[in-house]
């Protein structure tokens, strides 16, 4: 018979059932659950662990034994980063995956779900994901996940996925839950209260001390559900043991991860973990700073140009998703203020500038394509519907950011009655006032 047994075969002989029943009768408290059964009509019950045996070992001892089994604290301390590659299956389809980890808790997980690529990451302080699935973010650009998901990703970001490695230093709380029978596996269970408030139950094999399961609550499609992760197929990599096979049951999701390759202490580019800025704003990143501005303006087309000094500050918010500019200058000898935001409209893939000044008090929206061939960014309000109506005729406006260097750029304002013939009305010469960097 050629049958290859599945990875586990968990079953309870009658003797075990009887023993479980006796044990459950003897042990009060929430861990003496009778096989996940409740007879009360309402409420979801805790389903893990199955039953508890009398012997208990201190949580710190369980964790210490686990770390020894995994290769020892000294070897683990010598590991600063890792990259895992292999196959990841969800929705019954299999694709390659890659995980990047760096101490203390930087994390990036690239995989596919339902034939769509998903990136989940934690930058050390906050989570982001790139998830096009309609059940989740449903958009084609990176976003911050809802708080319950973010909390889960932060937990996933614990180095090697194991919060017990440096539990005390990371502010996690350990509580022994005693010995347990996890569906046929004799384990020691430890509750880990993460510093972010999440609570997980970890099961360590009583014989090998290796982690075999992680049970947690996790966000899943608009609800919080039980999430069970099982670890097996441990293999040695540079003196430490890593699980090369994981199964995850989360709500109705089943995911299976098979590691093909694990590399430790790999050089990982720093921006692997940080929120990806919108591409158009990456091109404008040099705008951030404090600038001395020379403005050249004229109140009417046939009047002479008026030149005066000004000042501008431009800041980035939301991980570079928005640039906010405050510009002060003199217009025909009178102080003027302009506030502008620069964003990348992902739906139209265009630069969008929202311009409000203290003269019109009107949000004027300029929309433009990506960087022009000559390096300029050109945006107009011809299509945005915000052009100023002069008591009837509409006067369109256009703004052009000329090559944005590290320490210098220019901006030109123009007006047009028809969107085709443009007349320059103002120009601004920005020179960095905050020290800047070498180069242009």
């Amino acid at each position, binding site marked *: *018979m*050629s049958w*290859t*047994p*599945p*990875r*586990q*075969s*968990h*079953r*309870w*002989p*009658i*003797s*075990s*059932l*009887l*023993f479980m029943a*006796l044990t459950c009768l003897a042990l009060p408290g929430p861990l003496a659950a*009778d*096989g*996940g*059964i*409740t*007879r*009360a*009509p309402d409420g*979801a*019950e805790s*389903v893990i662990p*199955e039953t508890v045996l009398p012997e208990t070992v201190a949580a710190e001892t369980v964790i210490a034994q686990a770390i020894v089994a995994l290769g020892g604290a000294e070897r683990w301390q010598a590991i600063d980063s890792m990259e895992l590659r292999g196959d990841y299956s969800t*929705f*019954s389809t299999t694709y390659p995956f890659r995980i990047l980890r760096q101490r203390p808790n930087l994390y990036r997980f690239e995989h596919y779900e*339902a034939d769509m690529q998903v990136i989940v990451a934690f930058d050390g302080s906050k989570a982001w994901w790139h998830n096009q*699935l*309609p*059940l989740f973010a449903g958009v084609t650009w990176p976003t911050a996940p809802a708080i319950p998901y973010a909390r889960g990703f932060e937990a996933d970001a614990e180095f090697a996925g194991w919060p017990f490695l440096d539990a005390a230093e990371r502010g996690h709380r350990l509580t022994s839950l005693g010995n347990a029978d996890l569906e*046929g*596996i004799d384990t020691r269970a430890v509750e880990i209260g993460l510093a972010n408030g999440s609570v997980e139950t970890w099961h360590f*094999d009583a014989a*090998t001390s*290796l982690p075999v399961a992680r049970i947690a609550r996790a966000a*899943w499609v608009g*609800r919080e559900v*039980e999430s069970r992760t*099982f670890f*097996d*197929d*441990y*293999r*040695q990599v540079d003196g430490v*043991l890593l*699980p*090369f096979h994981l199964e995850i*049951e989360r*709500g*109705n*999701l*089943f995911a*299976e991860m098979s590691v093909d390759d694990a590399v430790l202490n790999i050089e990982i580019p720093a921006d692997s973990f940080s929120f990806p800025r919108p591409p158009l704003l990456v091109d404008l990143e040099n705008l951030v700073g404090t600038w001395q501005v020379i403005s050249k303006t004229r109140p009417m087309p046939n009047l002479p140009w008026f030149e005066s000094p000004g000042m501008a500050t431009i800041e980035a918010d939301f991980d570079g998703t928005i640039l906010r500019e405050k510009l002060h200058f003199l217009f025909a000898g009178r102080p003027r203020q302009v506030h502008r935001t620069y964003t990348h409209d992902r739906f139209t893939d265009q630069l969008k500038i929202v311009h409000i000044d203290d003269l019109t008090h009107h949000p004027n929206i300029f929309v433009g394509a990506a960087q022009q061939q000559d390096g300029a960014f050109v945006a107009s309000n011809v299509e945005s519907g915000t052009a100023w109506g002069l008591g009837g005729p509409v006067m369109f406006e256009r703004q052009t950011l000329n090559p944005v260097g590290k320490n210098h750029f220019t901006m030109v304002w123009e007006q047009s009655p028809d969107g085709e013939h443009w007349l320059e009305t103002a120009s601004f010469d920005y020179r960095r006032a905050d020290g800047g960097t070498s180069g242009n």
Partner: protein
Amino acid sequence: MTPFRYNIPAPLTVLGLAALLLAPCLGAEETVPQPHSMTLDKASASWHQFRGAWRSGYATDTGLARSWPAEGPKVHWKRPLGEGFSSLSIADGRLFTSFSDADQEILVAFDTTSGEEIWRRPLGPKFEEFFGNGPRSTPTVDGSIVYALGSRGRLLAASAEDGSIVWQVDLQQAFPITQPQTLTPVGATPPGPQLPVYGYAGSPLLVDDLLVVETGARNGRSFAALDKQTGDRRWTALDTEIGYSSPVLVEIDGRRQIIALPGKEVVALSPEGELLWRHDWAWTTSQPLFVPPNRLLVSAENDAGALMLQVRPQGGVQEIWRSGRLKNAWNSSVRVGDYIYGFDNATLRCLRAADGQLMWAQRGLGKGNVIHADGLLIVLTDKGKVVIAEASEQGFEASGEMQALSGRCWTPPALAEGILYARNHEHLIALDLRPRAAGESSDAEGSRR
């Protein structure tokens, strides 16, 4: 490096001895299911509808091979098939299912002996959806007529002989869904009659001279019984959000009841369309499972778990037990004797029907559909592997496996006259589960891959 393996705790000798003495009290294994209280006689107990004669995942076949050789059972035939989750119905040497091509859904009949297509009939425009395209509903066969429901609501009664149309009803037009559904996808709600988010998925149920379908329309028209000969409306009932499982006909205390899972509840209708009882439950795509003489198991994914109900003779139901250990998704459980076997996400579990006691758990199969016959559990995993094991509350000991299909295999298989039929979005395969004659190879002549 030796791969890590789980340790299974050794039985405790003393307690094991005590348990042996007590074993008779716990109930002996019963591999042959008790007869269901149904009107079908054994002669008609084929797999003529979704999940078999009683919609319970049970086939009356006997004499199946108890184990398989390394290469698995003989491939009776294999042929291409289009997208869809529609399962297979078998009657009188013909297999009926539906699939979609590039533009439309199609009801099709195949010869069970050769796998040759006999006829096909359009079933409506193609349905596309995130989890997979194509029809969901399984045809129901009643002698010379096959009833099929397309994802967009086209209900067809066709001649089983040649596919000619006997009658047809457009459920979207006859019973429009005018209220927003709970599970409306992100985006604007389309005006006018709506399509169920996952398409019309329930399989038509025969009740005497009636064909019962779930319409999802509101205001007393969520379920409809049509004259099976003419398609004329006989009765309508209930005001419930459309579900994605199929109604089941059971008989409890001498009274026949149509059990269905619309929206987030369990309901029972009489064959005349009268509401007998209803009980709050969870949204699910799995099937209610009749546990004779008077119990019903329902199960749902996420944290809902399983609920065993007992139908009271005087009306209404009583909750017997709940369990977080059995969370059926698109797969439904089966009952073999006194035990329930079913998938809890990707863990196959055995629970004692009487009280929900967990008997064993088996991972390593992924998600899957389980059916049973001849005391065997037959599992089709979500990645196309077929695995058999004796149904036993003592544990899951696989005695054969075969990678029959690949890709996403979420459709329950069918079993009739010793042949197991399974499909995915590309192929339909027939496996001969009967013991092989000496020298037979696993690959039958004429397979069309």
